[in-house]
């Protein structure tokens, strides 16, 4: 209520823009592959934003509320669960300070020219918790940052400091798009409780694992989301300088072409796993740790995920121009340490080089076509990568056909991960009934030669790619949106 009161007050001021975007999305799982999965989800999102002039610049204020209700038919402890989250959206101030322009706040700083397969857009974290169902405008997550910009008319330098860094938001457990699906953790704990081990500790460990499984099953949604969210954030350093990132962007707009050089000294947006060897050995041999492995056991209890967030140097370049009726965009990026997952919860850091190119063509607002290609090369990669490939070429294409005076649009898109032989196709039809109401419906189909993992063990040794890992979540949705 405070937010809406603030927005109402802001609306009274001169030159203030206020917007409210509320939507209810009902998602149906098209293929019921697992008894534990969610059959339906209802996602309600409310985003309120306001902006206006202040101090020669502009302030902005945003807040996002998100409620998810999931219906699974055979979930232990009930078949409906719900979770709510309210968080600040883009909020801050941008304006002149002496010869420079300053941007301060909880904001999104976007790099790059490619939309479907970005390469240099590495500064902000992404919301990956709902996989491909998250609306594109909500994928990039705001983070606290300060950006100073200085330059002349068509050339400028931007120095960005992110005091607390940023991270991707990944669902660790319990949803259709989580790394570990509904019921997999408790099932793994129950299975481990049947393993043999040292006679001195076996019974104790089996009891503990059984109790742990019951505990996970008994967590309510909010608590489980918070608990696994906290686990996914473990290992992030607290001290300001230990967490902060520094980034520099040099950009020029000579006639006919935009070019930029980017560089950063930043923490990885995705965590580096490093499961203790004692735990890895136990999982591989399916035996409980013995008395001699107590040190490993204690390490697991102290830090079950073993996550860290390695630093990396980043250097890249961007280019955008037009060739006749076609727009051309290209990006390249070098990273000194990319965090990659290996089998059984291990991880590694390797240097990588990524390149991407995009073409687009449009006929007014009636038709827009875009095609993009990207490839990442991991330099000196380990042999047992999970959800990654030594060389990872990808293709993507999309279109937007607008009909009936822009009241109806058809938006198909496809992504192909060539290293894994995987394809994801998505199509959505939007109907703007009035200025205030929009109705849309769509579907996504995920295809992979490798089935999605059915257990923790399969997830930790998965040989498919990111599309395959989600390939049991083909879905169709209907969304009603209210815009003010």
């Amino acid at each position, binding site marked *: 209520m405070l937010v809406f009161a603030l927005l109402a007050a802001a609306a009274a001021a001169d030159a203030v823009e206020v917007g409210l*975007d509320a939507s209810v999305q009902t998602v149906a799982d098209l293929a019921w592959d697992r008894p534990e999965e969610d059959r339906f989800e209802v996602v309600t999102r409310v985003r309120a934003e306001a902006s206006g002039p202040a101090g020669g*610049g502009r302030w902005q204020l945003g807040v996002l509320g998100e409620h998810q209700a999931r219906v699974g038919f055979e979930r232990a402890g009930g078949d409906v669960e719900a979770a709510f989250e309210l968080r600040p959206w883009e909020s801050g101030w941008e304006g002149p300070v002496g010869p420079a322009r300053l941007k301060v706040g909880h904001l999104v700083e*976007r790099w790059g020219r490619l939309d479907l397969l970005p390469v240099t857009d590495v500064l902000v974290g992404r919301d990956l918790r709902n996989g491909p169902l998250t609306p594109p405008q909500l994928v990039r997550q705001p983070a606290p940052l300060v950006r100073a910009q200085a330059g002349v008319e068509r050339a400028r330098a931007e120095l960005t400091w992110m005091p607390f860094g940023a991270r991707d938001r990944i669902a660790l457990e319990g949803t259709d798009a989580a790394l570990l699906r509904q019921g997999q953790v408790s099932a793994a704990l129950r299975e481990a409780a049947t393993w043999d081990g040292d006679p001195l500790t076996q019974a104790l460990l089996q009891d503990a694992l059984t109790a742990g499984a019951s505990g996970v099953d008994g967590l309510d949604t909010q608590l489980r989301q918070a608990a696994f969210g906290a686990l996914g954030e473990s290992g992030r350093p607290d001290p300001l300088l230990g967490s902060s990132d520094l980034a520099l962007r040099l950009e020029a707009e000579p006639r006919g072409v935009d070019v930029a050089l980017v560089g950063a000294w930043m923490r990885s947006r995705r965590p580096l796993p490093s499961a203790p060897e004692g735990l890895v050995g136990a999982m591989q041999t399916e035996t409980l740790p013995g008395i001699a492995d107590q040190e490993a056991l204690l390490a697991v209890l102290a830090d079950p995920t073993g996550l860290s967030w390695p630093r990396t140097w980043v250097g890249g370049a961007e280019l955008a121009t*037009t060739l006749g*009726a076609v727009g051309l965009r290209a990006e390249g990026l070098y990273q000194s340490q990319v965090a990659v997952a290996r089998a059984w919860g291990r991880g590694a850091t390797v240097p990588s080089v990524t390149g991407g190119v995009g073409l687009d063509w*449009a006929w*007014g607002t*009636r038709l827009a076509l875009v095609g993009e290609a990207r490839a990442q090369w991991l330099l000196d990669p380990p042999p047992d990568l999970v959800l990654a490939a030594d060389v990872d070429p990808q293709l993507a294409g999309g279109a937007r056909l*607008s009909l009936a005076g822009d009241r109806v649009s058809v938006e198909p898109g496809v992504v192909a991960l060539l290293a894994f032989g995987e394809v994801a196709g998505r199509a959505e039809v939007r109907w*703007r009934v009035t200025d205030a109401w929009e109705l849309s419906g769509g579907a996504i189909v995920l295809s992979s030669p490798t089935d999605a993992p059915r257990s923790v063990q399969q997830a930790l040794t998965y040989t498919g790619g990111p599309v395959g890992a989600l390939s049991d979540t083909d879905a169709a949705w209907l969304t009603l949106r209210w815009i003010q």
Partner: protein
Amino acid sequence: MRAARALLPLLLAALSMPAAAEDADLDQILADARETRQVENSIQKVRMVLVSRTGKERVREFEARVRRDGEVVKSWTRFSHPSDVAGTQLVLVDHPDAADEQRLCLPALKRVNRIAGKARKGSFMGSDFAFEDLEISGADDAKASLVSETDAQWVIDAVPGGESSYGRVRFTVRKADKVPTMVEFFDAADAPLKRLTIEDTARDGEVVLPTRSTMENLQKGTKTRLEVLEHRLNVPADEIPDETFTAAFMERSG
């Protein structure tokens, strides 16, 4: 690379007219009309109402800034309503002797992008205005002829050349102030396609500005009303600095 071409912002002060004429009198009419409508730099706030065949209305509001440096015309358009398109911006820089520059900023993508030439084809933001309707010069190689003349007005036909989607355009020009009061567009088969009616004007110094106009699509039954909510013409150049037309300005105005 067409001379003195600019989109909507300039249309609001100056409707499309043929650039050439076959006889001296017609040349003078058009030259006078052009002079009357000549604007160097302008800032305007505009409401665009899209009316469907069934009478349903949708509203768009935007601000347009135009700066003219000799033969180079630069325009910046930013939509402010409805909220889901607020922050969408279009920058057009028309060079007389080089490739035009066009940039589009879509707030949802957080990106300012160069766009290619065909992006200026077809309907403007779902309205009954085509991009080419909004170009100040119209077709440079248009052939014009005087159809009729009364004490109050001239009626002039123009046959656009080049890539125009129109077979013929008929202008009705008011003699009193040299302002076109109606523009009728015909398709390639010479069937009536659209009709633009100027319903109200305002005088700002020597310039007569259309402040309310309606474009009707006679074949689809839809129409689009343009209302100028605020306007400032011939503003000092330093109020519209060159920086207005850069990606950096668009990014922070998104």
